């Protein structure tokens, strides 16, 4: 057991930090406000292109697709540094983490040739068409239909809460090809296909983040199907295993906690109450960090990652919440024009326990699979 970084890992982190200080305007978070705003989406294409040119966009991908087969630690160090910097990659983090690798596993040669190189060059944005008005945590009840008509699938239905849909080039879409849990399939849907209407949902989490996507008889060629009909769960499980740790939210939360504490210290406001809560929040961030590291370490050693990934994710949600609440209580002016960066973090933290699977679902998994408590009756 070793809690120190090896020289290669240190050098990799330093290279990312050097890159960020050279390529990220100091106030970029303020300029490109809103993780999926028009400005941020445009910025992400420029920024990811630069990352790609120096080999920092997809280092953990195979050589064939522009990577260098770097280990899971490199992928996570990259994710940590990017998120801590406010995630300048925008929605492209999904391409890098799981959409690209999922296509490498399940895509046809033609699908791979069409979609992977633009991801590796950092010039394309995807969205994920999972949630529906009647299918959130209970994804198996989704209703969007894909009906086969000769060599075409005709897709009809509605997606909701879809992040990045407003500027996405392609959607990783779940649709029903037959009844039942095993009747769900994955389609790669170009967002300029006729019959798609995207509406932004005004929200408290920032400009351009969540959308409704209406699919009105959208015609897709049969080769837009990823894998085989009914393979969605297997594909989703693989995607999930690539993205088990989730976003390293603790990294930005830690940075913002320090930022808030510095504000309090400058104003002579870092008193006993704030010190008590800051200590609790800082420790929770660190716990989430090492929980997440333990998952990366398992992957690095080729071990199966089980419910401890849900525990790591929940630890991260708790840490994010504590920091967010600390700022609300002790630096309340940040929500009213006092500190745009703390505000941006607050907006990101709102979704921590909701996006990519509700935190309560993680608790169910921990209870059943980690603690081995008897299952709930269904």
């Amino acid at each position, binding site marked *: 057991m070793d809690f120190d970084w090896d020289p290669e890992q240190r050098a990799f982190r330093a290279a990312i930090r050097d890159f960020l200080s050279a390529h990220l305007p100091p106030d970029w978070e303020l300029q490109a406000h809103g993780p999926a705003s028009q400005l941020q989406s445009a910025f992400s294409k420029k920024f990811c292109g630069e990352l790609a040119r120096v080999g920092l966009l997809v280092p953990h991908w195979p050589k064939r697709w522009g990577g260098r087969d770097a280990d899971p630690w490199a992928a996570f160090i990259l994710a940590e540094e990017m998120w801590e910097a406010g995630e300048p990659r925008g929605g492209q983090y999904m391409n890098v983490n799981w959409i690209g690798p999922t296509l490498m596993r399940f895509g046809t040669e033609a699908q791979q040739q069409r979609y992977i190189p633009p991801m590796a060059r950092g010039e394309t944005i995807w969205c994920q068409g999972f949630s529906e008005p009647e299918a959130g945590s209970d994804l198996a009840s989704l209703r969007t239909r894909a009906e086969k008509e000769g060599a075409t699938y005709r897709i009809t239905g509605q997606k909701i809460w879809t992040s990045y849909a407003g500027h996405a080039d392609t959607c990783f879409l779940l649709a029903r090809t037959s009844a039942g849990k095993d009747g769900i399939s994955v389609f790669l849907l170009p967002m300029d296909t006729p019959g798609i209407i995207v509406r932004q949902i005004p929200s408290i989490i920032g400009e351009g983040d969540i959308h409704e996507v209406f699919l009105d008889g959208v015609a897709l060629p049969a080769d837009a199907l990823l894998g085989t009909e009914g393979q969605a769960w297997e594909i989703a499980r693989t995607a999930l295993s690539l993205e088990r740790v989730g976003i390293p939210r603790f990294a930005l939360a830690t940075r913002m906690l320090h930022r808030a504490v510095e504000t309090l210290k400058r104003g002579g406001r870092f008193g006993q109450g704030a010190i008590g809560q800051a200590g609790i929040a800082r420790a929770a961030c*660190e716990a989430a960090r090492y929980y997440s590291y333990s998952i990366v370490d398992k992957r690095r050693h080729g071990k199966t990652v089980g419910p401890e990934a849900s525990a790591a994710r929940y630890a991260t949600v708790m840490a994010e919440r504590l920091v967010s609440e600390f700022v609300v209580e002790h630096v309340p002016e940040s929500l009213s024009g006092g500190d745009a960066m703390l505000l941006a973090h607050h907006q990101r933290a709102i979704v921590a326990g909701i996006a990519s699977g509700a935190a309560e679902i993680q608790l169910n998994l921990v209870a059943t699979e980690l603690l081995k408590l008897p299952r709930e009756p269904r």
Partner: protein
Amino acid sequence: MDFELTSDQEALVSAIDKLAQRFETKPTEFHGFALVGRELDEELTEGQYFDVAQIPELGPLAAAIVVERLARLPCTAEIALSMLLRPHLPGEWPRPLGLVEGGRPGRFVAGARTVIAIEGDSVSLARPAAAEVEPVESLLAYPMGRLRSCVASTLLASAEAASVRKWLRVALAAEASGLLQAAVASAVEHLTLRKQFGRPLGTFQALRHRMAECAVLAGGVRWLALKAAATADEGDAALAAMHAQESATRIVYDVHQMLAAMGMTLEHPLHLWTYRLKALLAELGGRGGQAMAVARHCFGASA
């Protein structure tokens, strides 16, 4: 960064697991507050396990792993302070160690050959004679004791005192980690076996989610304790003790709710873990004290 155990650490863990087997269950006839593991102490002494931290291939991280493992037992012995703190005391101070804060009753004091006395900012060490200490009856599940009178002691220099506080925090976190895991496991066992409304309590989501949160917190305490032992950094030690006390506050309450009346009995071993945790909750100023240490070492706040 690599969390696989080394072959030396693995060999140690397997030896400790084997040694611990005999002590896994509370003797059915025992109905006391603190179950003192004298035989456990003897076996650890015989196997020279108290020196684990000083062996270069093992070190404080391995010692923390041992402390955490043995804290899961229902019986208690003075292990954490001897393994993690004693190697950092200036000079030779014999074990077992006792801890007195602010003149209040403390852990292991009545049987201690060395007492660490904390009074405000000062830390001193003493070798009390048998007549200078006495046991104290307590609800807590450590053998509690106090100094009868003022004993001759050596006041530590501020750097030495800081080192003592740091390793006390590491020892506290490692011990709390094992206690928390055992308490959670005990509650999980109860929720699995106990039926109400025709089904196991563990099938009710209100309880499942609380236990899952407890398990997540306990897991975090373990990671921070091990990290602090490995890095020997003052900030890491403060964070580990902070998270241990904060999590224990929540978990101790929750596991007693899960066990309900059964957890109040001396027949059930739950209190042997939770009432050690309650003793640890108050040490080094409790959560407020740890938060001050975090402020100093992680946020650069002046003392």
